């Protein structure tokens, strides 16, 4: 995988107000997404996180403020050319139903006028990367794919032309929990191979903790807090962030069951667990789901 270094993304006092809306969907957001990072924007539905994502590839335009890619204002050039350099994955997947898997993956390389032989080789390489056997899947139509397989193809299509930024809008929201977990693991693996900057939107705290180098918590169109998972878990800046991640004090991974139960009995829904520099959360819901694989994240 000949990776291209990711670009930095910077939001600079970004405001987005939709026509006819009485309040801004994005209400003055500024933060930086480091090159090559896996940054997760976390927030409830309607908090503006999808709008924020779509401002990067100009599916929505800034009302005021700027979005910068490697220091250049995205609104400076041609939106179509901009989008061809940015991967885009959405919850509804949006595979083109009249095209085969291979044709779907080949869309952006085709738009960029790659030679056919290079496209064919790239399609096979990508199918292998996302864990689908090329011979079996190349010629299939999207209707013959499961939800998880479809989104793997969606990811392959998004990264086909080696974008320097990959935008993922709740990509695993529509698949069941078991498939979601394996897609999350593979996304992490692909991210470390690609070096692409990934901006990932979710409302799922566990998903954010599982994937992110950096988490940006949004609420009502504003940033509540941006930082590493450890910072958010151990030093929440606002009561809202604290309520998302549980109590501010982390318990050690070696804590006894008695400590854990005592903490839960204080009314907490979710506990922060810390093992050296690794940090995660544990919740009653997760404990109930756990099937003996003592996975605390």
């Amino acid at each position, binding site marked *: 995988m000949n990776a291209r270094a990711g670009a930095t993304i910077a939001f600079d006092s970004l405001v987005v107000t939709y026509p006819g809306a009485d309040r801004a969907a994005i209400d003055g957001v500024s933060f930086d997404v480091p090159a090559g990072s896996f940054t997760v924007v976390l927030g409830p539905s309607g908090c503006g996180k999808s709008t924020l994502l779509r401002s990067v590839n100009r599916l929505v335009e800034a009302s005021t403020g700027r979005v910068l890619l490697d220091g250049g204002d995205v609104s400076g050039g041609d939106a179509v050319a901009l989008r061809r*350099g940015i991967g885009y994955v959405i919850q509804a997947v949006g595979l083109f139903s009249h095209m085969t898997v291979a044709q779907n993956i080949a869309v952006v390389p085709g*738009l960029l006028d790659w030679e056919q032989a290079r496209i064919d080789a790239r399609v096979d390489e990508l199918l292998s990367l996302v864990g689908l056997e090329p011979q079996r899947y190349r010629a299939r139509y999207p209707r013959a794919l499961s939800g998880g397989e479809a989104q793997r193809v969606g990811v392959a299509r998004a990264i086909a032309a080696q974008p320097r930024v990959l935008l993922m809008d709740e990509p695993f929201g529509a698949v069941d929990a078991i498939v979601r977990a394996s897609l999350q693991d593979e996304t992490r693996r692909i991210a470390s191979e690609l070096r692409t900057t990934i901006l990932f939107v979710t409302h799922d705290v566990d998903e954010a903790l599982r994937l992110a180098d950096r988490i940006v918590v949004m609420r009502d169109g504003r940033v509540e807090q941006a930082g590493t998972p450890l910072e958010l878990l151990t030093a929440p800046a606002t009561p809202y962030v604290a309520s998302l991640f549980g109590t501010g004090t982390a318990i050690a991974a070696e804590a006894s069951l008695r400590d854990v139960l005592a903490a839960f009995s204080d009314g907490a829904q979710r506990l922060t667990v810390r093992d050296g520099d690794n940090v995660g959360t544990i919740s009653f819901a997760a404990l109930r789901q756990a099937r003996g694989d003592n996975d605390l994240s």
Partner: protein
Amino acid sequence: MSYLTAHPREVAWLFVQHCALVGTALAIAFAIALPLGIFAARSARFATPLYGTLAVIYTIPSLALLAAIVRFFGLGFWPTVIALVAYAQFVLARNVAAGVRGVPYAQTDAARGLGMTSLQRLLRIELPLATPVILGGLRIAVVAMIALATLGGYVNAGGLGVLIFRGLDAQYTAETLAGSIPAALLAIAADLFFRALERRAIGSA
């Protein structure tokens, strides 16, 4: 069948004329309806007055519409074609618009996000996915046009209507049937043909 066996060449010639009337009108009508439908799918402000106008034309009794057109354009082939084109717009333009609007949002959003221009989106995504619905419109329109084109027999445009009206005037049932039965068979054949195309299109969309 007696008239047909007695005058096979005349019936065949009028059948060809009938097909020419319908074929010409269908080609022109579709060439107009395609852009109209696409604009209507894009803009509700354009769609509402368009559908209103086309619905008014559609509700005018076809004979009255033809009479009005003959009043301005005279008798013959082209005035009949104009009437057929005007009449078919309602069904064709609406189906084009419905087909384009029916393309799942996820697919148009993905097409935009991947960097297709609006023309590429139209040609590569929206029209291919709208094809079954557009073919449905063509099927309904062509069947109606085959029936309506018989009115061409009244206004010197030729076609199978010539036999129907002449037979009615002369109270010669065999001649009327020699016009109406081939017209009915043509309509059934056209219907089956477009149904087959629709099925193929659904299979690949």
